[in-house]
C-alpha cells in the first residue's frame, strides 16, 4: 500500500488556491484524505493528507511549480497515519476574554495537567483594535475524568476572574 503524505501549503490568500492545487494533484493521480484548509490572518493555510505517490520527492516535483506560482510555502512529509483513526471528543471547552499574552498557554497547560487530550483547537481574535478579545474552542478527551478538568478551570478562574470559561460534555448519540 502506498504511504500517505502530509502536505502543508501556506501563503498570502488569493482566490482559487484550493481549486488549482487540488486539480493539479488530481491530474497527477493523487488522492486526498483528511484535510484542513482555512484562512488565518490573511493567509491561506492548507494541511492535507495526500496519497497515490510513492515518495516525497515525486510529490514535491508535482507541487513545486504551483507553490512557486501562487507564492505558497510548501512542505511535504511522509506520515505514519492512516484514514479511519478518528477519536471521539467527549468534552468541549470554550474560553474567551480580553486579549492578553498567555491565555492559550495557561489554559492548555492547566487542562493538559488535568488529563485533557486536545483533538481540535480553534481560536480567533475579535473586537476592535484598541480592545481585542480572544476566543478559543477546544474539543478533546477527558482522560482523567470531568472533575479534574473542572478543578483545573476553577483554578484558572481564580487567577484570572475576568475570563469566561465553559466546560460542556459532548454527548454522542449513535443511531
Amino acid at each position, binding site marked *: 500500500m502506498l504511504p500517505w503524505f502530509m502536505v502543508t501549503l501556506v501563503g498570502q490568500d488569493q482566490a482559487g488556491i484550493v481549486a488549482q492545487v487540488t486539480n493539479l494533484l488530481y491530474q497527477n493521480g493523487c488522492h486526498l484524505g483528511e484535510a484542513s484548509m*482555512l484562512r488565518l490572518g490573511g493567509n491561506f493555510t492548507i494541511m492535507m493528507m495526500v496519497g497515490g505517490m510513492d515518495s516525497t520527492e515525486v510529490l514535491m516535483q508535482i507541487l513545486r511549480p504551483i507553490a512557486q506560482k501562487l507564492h505558497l510555502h510548501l512542505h511535504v512529509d511522509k506520515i505514519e497515519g492512516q484514514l*479511519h483513526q*478518528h477519536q*471521539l*471528543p467527549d468534552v468541549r471547552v*470554550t474560553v474567551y476574554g480580553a486579549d492578553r499574552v498567555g491565555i492559550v498557554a495557561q489554559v492548555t497547560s492547566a487542562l493538559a495537567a488535568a488529563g485533557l487530550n486536545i483533538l*481540535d483547537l*480553534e481560536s480567533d481574535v475579535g473586537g476592535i483594535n484598541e480592545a481585542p478579545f480572544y476566543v478559543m*474552542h477546544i474539543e478533546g478527551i477527558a482522560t482523567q475524568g470531568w472533575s479534574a478538568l*473542572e478543578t483545573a*478551570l*476553577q483554578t484558572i*478562574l*481564580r487567577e484570572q*476572574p475576568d475570563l469566561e*470559561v*465553559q*466546560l*460542556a*460534555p*459532548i*454527548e*454522542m*448519540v*449513535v*443511531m
Partner: protein
Amino acid sequence: MARLTLLTYPDPRLKQVAEPVSQFDAQLQLLVADLEETMRASPGGVGIAATQVGHLQRVVIVDVSSKPKISHHGRLILINPEILDWEGFEIGREGCMSVPDYTGNVVRATHLQLVAQDEQGKEHKYTMEGYEARAVQHELDHLDGILFIDRLVSRRRDLFQRKSYKKTNSS
C-alpha cells in the same frame, strides 16, 4: 427473529422516503422484533429506523434507557410517527450506524410532541426532551431519507446556544 444487515452510506436506499404502515399484522411484528435485535446488537445504538435495513416503511425504535440520569419513555416502538410540535434547539454530536467512522454536530429541537402508533396500531402521544428527543428526530429523518450529514453545522462557527456547564468564580 433475525439480525438484519444494516445499510451503510452511500447506499442509495438510505436517501429514499419510507411509506406509511397500513397493515398491523404478524409481518410488522416480525419486522419490529428483527429491528430491535439489530439495534441492540450495535454497540451504543439507541435507535433504529426500518430504512436502515432497507425496509422502506415508517417504523422506528428508540430506547435511550441505557443512558443514566435522563428522562425517557423506555422502549419506544414508533409506527407512522409525526412531530406535532417542537421547541428550543441545541447542538449535539451524532453518529449513525449507517454512517460508520464519522460523527458531526447537528442542531435538533430540545422538546418534542409526537404522535405515533404502536405495533398494534394504537395511537399514542408523547412529550419528550433532550437526548431522547434528539434520537427520535434522527430516526424520523431516516424515514424521509435524510441523514445527519445532511444537517451538519460548521464546527468553526457554532453560534448555537447549547446547554453547558458554566463555571463561576464564586467558590
